[in-house]
């Protein structure tokens, strides 16, 4: 059984994460997921590669805190969050959020809330490689 929040270099399987959540309860009626991927284009430039840096101890603590908050706030049956670290190229998966609830609205709302919060609260930084060189991504306000 893998941890419900993880930082990992390898890719993830949405089917495998959903199966893990479904094994925890037969009360689940709705599962929402969000997959963030590396686009080949950002801020007007081609992106050939993205490297991640992270503060692992704090990132895992924040992910765990967000998962617990979402479970409580939306009444979820279960949730998992996986963020890749290391390097990825265009089209690759970056982040996965899976939320499971008895009904669809809490699962969908929690999934949206979690990805928004993750971007605000979790210490991970992206560096994009473009034909103009490498640069750290500056998030929009």
């Amino acid at each position, binding site marked *: 059984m893998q941890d419900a929040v993880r930082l990992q270099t390898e890719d993830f399987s949405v089917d495998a994460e959903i199966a893990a959540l479904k094994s925890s309860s037969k009360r689940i009626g709705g599962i929402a997921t969000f997959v963030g991927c590396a686009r080949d284009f950002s801020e007007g430039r081609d992106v050939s590669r993205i490297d991640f840096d992270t*503060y692992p101890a704090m990132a895992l603590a924040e992910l765990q805190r967000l998962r617990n908050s979402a479970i409580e706030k939306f009444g979820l049956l279960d949730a998992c969050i996986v963020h890749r670290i290391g390097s990825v190229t265009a089209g690759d998966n970056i982040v996965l959020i899976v939320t499971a609830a008895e009904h669809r609205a809490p699962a969908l709302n929690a999934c949206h809330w979690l990805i928004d919060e993750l*971007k*605000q609260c979790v*210490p991970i930084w*992206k560096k994009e490689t473009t034909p103009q060189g490498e640069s*750290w*991504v*500056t998030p929009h306000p």
Partner: protein
Amino acid sequence: MIRVLFFGPVAERVQTREKQFEFIQGMKLQDVVTALSVSDPQAFDIVSFTAVNQTQVKDMQLPLNDGDEIAFMAKFSGG
């Protein structure tokens, strides 16, 4: 000993991922900020968040303890 960690764009500007400061009784977070603002001003231009022992802190008057782990971080861009 106080460990100060840098990541991503801040680490690039400081040109290291870690600095260490000797712990002095009565030391406050502001003392570390002041020392680094002098040694690495270009890094502090982009620092948006500070954490002590993996928890975000806004009060720079926070007293430090020996062994604390501090991080000065740029805006996050994960996800």
